[in-house]
């Protein structure tokens, strides 16, 4: 084991951008307030001074235009990183991402690839109400032609970007807003990581807790609490939301025979629904209980703290779901 240092998720993302910019002159960062302001979440703070205005490119509030420009630039030889402030704003760029980025390689019969990375913040928990708090990554994960990542650890925040930039496909990376301040150890020589496999974050035998992104810390906390109650919960971090690593999910459930999916998206038509369906298709005869889901309440995320807390998946809700499934005797 090499030496480690303590670093925040935010700083890890920044290091990843800096590293990519240094490695490849085709890489540039483009988005609203990424330069002078330093990034809405201060991810790109300091990079403008380091790399200049050409490569740390502030854009007007034109999500469609700069997302599309990222696609065009990728088609024309660059390796752009497009930052969209939040997934809610990305809906203004949905046409470009879904109708162009995801289709052109296929529509052109494989003549072109779009090596583009789009980063965006997602998720609730900061009392910024219903137009800044949603988790729509499941929508993107629905679309063939895109790859969708959700780094939930410091290591993945540091390592996923470069792998995504090396990928010939458009990759959308979702950074949960509540993770930016998370601090943790990172190997001094940390670098690119795989972006195809889910990761086992905690082994267990009684139930598989399948989650990703901002729900991972909550899920790990729930697993710890459950351990005190004699329930051994396994935690699977999806990491890659499209394509889903069905193999790892199924292997875990084949071991524990029970699954609770924790997904900050709404339940209806969600990633959690997709995972549940895959378990039916691939692990039906392994299941010892119906699959259970802990998702956001089916409401636009409200502003008051107590209501927002009630709307989002919580450690309590996860424990309740598991207890209902495991502890009925």
């Amino acid at each position, binding site marked *: 084991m090499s030496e480690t240092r303590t670093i925040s998720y935010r700083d890890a993302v920044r290091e990843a951008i800096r590293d990519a910019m240094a490695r490849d002159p085709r890489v540039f960062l483009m988005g609203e307030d990424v330069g002078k302001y330093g990034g809405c979440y201060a991810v790109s703070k300091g990079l403008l001074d380091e790399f200049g205005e050409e490569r740390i490119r502030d854009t*007007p509030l034109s999500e469609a235009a700069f997302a*599309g420009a990222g696609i065009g*630039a990728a088609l024309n*030889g*660059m390796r752009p990183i497009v930052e969209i402030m939040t997934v809610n704003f990305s809906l203004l760029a949905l046409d470009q991402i879904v109708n*162009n980025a995801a289709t*052109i*390689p*296929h529509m052109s*019969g494989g003549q072109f690839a779009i090596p583009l990375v789009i980063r965006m913040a997602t998720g609730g928990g900061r009392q910024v109400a219903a137009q800044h708090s949603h988790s729509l990554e499941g929508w993107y994960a629905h679309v063939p032609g895109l790859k969708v990542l959700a780094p939930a650890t410091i290591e993945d925040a540091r390592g996923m970007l470069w792998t995504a930039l090396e990928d010939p496909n458009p990759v959308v990376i979702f950074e949960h807003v509540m993770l930016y301040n998370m601090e943790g150890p990172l190997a001094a020589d940390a670098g690119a990581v795989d972006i195809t496999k889910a990761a086992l974050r905690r082994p267990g035998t009684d139930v598989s807790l399948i989650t990703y992104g901002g729900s991972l810390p909550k899920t790990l906390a729930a697993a710890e609490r459950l351990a005190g109650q004699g329930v051994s919960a396994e935690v699977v971090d999806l990491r890659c939301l499209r394509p889903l690593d069905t193999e790892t999910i199924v292997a875990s459930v084949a071991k524990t025979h029970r699954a609770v999916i924790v997904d900050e998206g709404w339940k209806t038509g969600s990633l959690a629904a997709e995972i549940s369906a895959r378990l039916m298709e691939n692990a039906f005869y392994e299941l010892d209980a119906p699959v259970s889901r802990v998702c956001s309440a089916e409401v636009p995320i409200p502003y008051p703290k107590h209501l927002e807390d009630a709307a989002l998946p919580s450690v309590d809700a996860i424990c309740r779901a598991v207890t209902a499934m495991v502890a009925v005797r």
Partner: protein
Amino acid sequence: MTATADKPHLTRAHLLELLRGMVRIRRFEEKCAELYTQEKIRGFLHLYIGEEAIAVGAMQALAPQDAVIATYREHGHALARGIAPGPLMAEMYGKLEGCCRGRGGSMHVFDRVARFYGGNAIVGGGLPLAVGFALADRMAGRANVTACFFGEGAVAEGEFHESMNLAALWKLPVLFVCENNLYAMGTALARSESQTDIALKARSYGMPADTVDGMNVVDVEAVTRAAVAEIRAGHGPRFLECKTYRFRAHSMFDAQLYRDKAEIEQWMTHDPIEALQTWMRLNGFLHDGDLDAVETAVAEEVETAVAFAEAGTWEPVEQLESFVVMDRVPQ
């Protein structure tokens, strides 16, 4: 004829080339309409007939390393840019030998060699791409131009305005060519725009803009050459509004309830092909037999293209899912 000069050289050979370019589009598309009724071509088929002067004139000004981005009414641009009629027709058939292996069809023509990037069927969706292409060229220090064709319907889209702003703000080498044929599908310009002077909209972003008779291929070529020269010299984007008219319906399944027959007949007296012929004849550029020679040559090209498409094969269903996720960036 060199393509990079900022003025057209009106030689007999060049004029014949322009004529042949327009006739090729006209006859090719007439054949497409026929094949559509025979169910050889399916889906949507949007014909460019009547607007040929714009694609043929504008393409004269572009160099091979430049990029072209067009709309779903792009057969004319594809042919004018040099995509061979055979692979283009095979694409309309949905055959493996099509320029996109048949996956795109009429509305989605792409070609790597021609640097032809669609075939974009979301109105306004191609403009941000053009901005990105130009941005990449600028950042990489390449003196290329990206030509982006769109109809006046796109002017109402947010993506149009965002792209105008971004291109002008960053002084990117984009040529925006608005083909104003007066109808966004069935909605007349005056029924959808508070300000119908489209060039004025571009100027409001600080972008130099010209309006040109889109039925006059020589005028289009001349104006485009001047604009491209400015762009290539690093003076930022330029905007062309080409006034034109489509002689055919919006697509094959269109009763044209939204416009008068008289209006169509009036515009057909400005047929760009006839206009060029008349002008050439008046000025002694069109000799006896020239027209027949052009028509014969084009007819043979179209016939060969249809035969090529007919002889094409269907992509095996096993390959359905290829090119959804790419394993490399094609070089």
